[in-house]
């Protein structure tokens, strides 16, 4: 599912594929926006009215492919970088996909790049045929020629990592991730996880300023200090330089967990000026303007 993985399913993609006639006729936009979110620049930017006006700003974009010319304006403005321009009209076994690509360095025209799918896997090679770098949107649109059968798969590109004359590391992530997240992929090691966790937990630092651990806070709650203010007064938790901004919510939720009170009913500690520690001389100085 898209909301579990971030990868659009084949089902969702299939719904966007136009008729064979439209595909043969020329470039068109594929709007891979499947979630109702408050966003409409695609529809307001289209000079041909091809992305239909939205009744509600949360509407999923609807495209009239008879009006769409594949100009790519929507792909440049889409904040979600979810619009791709597909051109299958050449009919020679190749097709092009235009990808919004906000990374550096940019590839050059004619350069061979790795064609990457929605999962981040390299599935072939492509050749860059056009680079449209708009100063206004700052979202370059890179057109890549690829085998026609990959045109609904390729949605990203990796530079071939051999331009090592530049000192800057390539900003594209070196894609080594497969879909099943095996431990090898994550560069991980298996560890013994049967060791006790309760003791570990007691060592967690809750109040960074005063160096107080979760174990200390738990002991205090067990002893009957069950408000944030009581714990503050007995232990100094929240009285350090950060003034409970870091530990306050953590202490409140631990009180809630241990006493069974709803968190909404746990009062935060009293807030008094000044909101940050200041030297006494500051207050003596004052404003003599």
């Amino acid at each position, binding site marked *: 599912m898209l909301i579990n993985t971030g990868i659009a399913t084949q089902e969702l993609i299939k719904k966007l594929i136009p008729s064979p006639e439209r595909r043969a006729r020329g470039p068109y936009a594929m709007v891979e926006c499947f979630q109702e979110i408050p966003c409409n*620049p695609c529809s307001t930017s289209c000079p041909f009215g091809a992305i239909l006006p939205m009744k509600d700003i949360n509407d999923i974009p609807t495209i009239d492919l008879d009006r769409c010319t594949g100009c790519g304006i929507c792909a440049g403005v889409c904040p979600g970088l979810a619009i791709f321009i597909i051109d299958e009209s050449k009919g020679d076994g190749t097709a092009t996909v235009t990808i919004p690509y906000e990374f550096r360095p940019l590839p050059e025209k004619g350069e061979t790049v790795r064609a990457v799918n929605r999962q981040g896997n390299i599935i072939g090679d492509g050749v860059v045929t056009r680079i449209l770098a708009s100063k206004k*949107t700052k979202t370059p649109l890179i057109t890549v020629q690829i085998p026609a059968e990959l045109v609904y798969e390729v949605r990203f590109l990796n530079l071939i990592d051999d331009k090592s004359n530049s000192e800057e590391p390539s900003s594209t992530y*070196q894609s*080594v991730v497969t879909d099943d997240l095996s431990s090898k992929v994550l560069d991980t090691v298996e560890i013994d996880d049967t060791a006790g966790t309760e003791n570990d937990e007691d060592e967690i630092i809750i109040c960074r300023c005063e160096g107080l651990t979760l174990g200390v806070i738990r002991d205090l709650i067990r002893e009957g200090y069950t408000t944030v203010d009581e714990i503050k007064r007995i232990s100094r938790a929240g009285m350090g330089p950060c003034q409970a901004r870091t530990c306050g919510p953590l202490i409140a939720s631990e009180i809630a967990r241990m006493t069974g009170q709803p968190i909404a009913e746990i009062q935060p500690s009293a807030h008094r000026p000044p909101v940050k520690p200041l030297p006494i001389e500051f207050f003596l100085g004052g*404003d003599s*303007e």
Partner: protein
Amino acid sequence: MMYEIDLAVIGGGPAGLMAANTAAEAGAKVLLLERDGHLGGQLVKQTHKFFGSEEQHASMRGNDISTMLGDRLGSFGERVTVWKSATVIGFYEDGVITIDHNGIYKKVKPMRVVVATGASEKFLSFPNNDLPGIYGAGAVQTMMNVYGIRPGQRVLMIGAGNIGLIVSYQLLQAGVSVAAIVEGLPHIGGYAVHASKVRRAGVPILTSHTIVRADGAESVESATIAEIDRGWNVIQRTMKTIACDVICISVGLTPLAELLWQAGCKMRYIPSLGGSVPLRNDCLETTVKGVFIAGDVSGIEEASAAMVEGRLAGLEAAASLGFKSERYCEERNDCMEQLAALRSGPTAEKIRSGLACAECR
């Protein structure tokens, strides 16, 4: 000496900038107080194009919106005073606010106040959570997008809400690799389009996973993660250790409401809005008369909503002082409609239910 002014706006982020602009346009004398040395708040770190519609500058990048709103403020001349490096340190019941302005103690008594202090980042408890190299998502953005410094070489991101997804993407843009994004919920919390952007760049998103511990001698060298069940219990034999030099915590924001507590505003803990928020009426006025709110301090939302709230609060604060143009009703309705639209979709369901609990008459 005590400064007197029509309206003080506390916070120069998206909400505060809009409030100051709108109130000044209506004719009020405004003092804008910003803790940082520059205006824009979190906008300056938002290098992605904004969602929403044209009215909220959709498709513009946050850092450009910040410049635009800051420039507009300059057009009001003496009507607007901006104090940068000015932290409001106290808000007293008699309406006086005290300020640390570049190390000088100042007092201001404004007729109206818009509190637009934003939010602070939530922290997470796990063993060694205090190791250097464990940073809040905002800190990572600050390092990269304000100072131009890579926070590390390989980052493990905790949290797949919009901020976690966007910051992961920004890390890739800065040339930093992202080992994985770990999310406790069984689904991705942020927009699917943001998730797809990082996913196709090769970053795994591990839902129903949590961080178990961090390790390292002086700073982070690795993190251990594990799968969790619906009750957030770690499932045995699913632990994995990931090599990384940065762990980025992006588990949500909580309203930075301490000044509202001090002012005596009635507060309510509303989890879907991020924590304790002030009760407010439909003019964004709190239970303390003359104190208005806008942006994340009123409940955690997107910056587009913060800008509209800022405009509404600025409009209402100015109107309550008699600065009311003939377009007042039209502008007010426009704000209401924009907010309703931004909050109407299924992704905003939590915000709608939260706000319903924060209303007062």
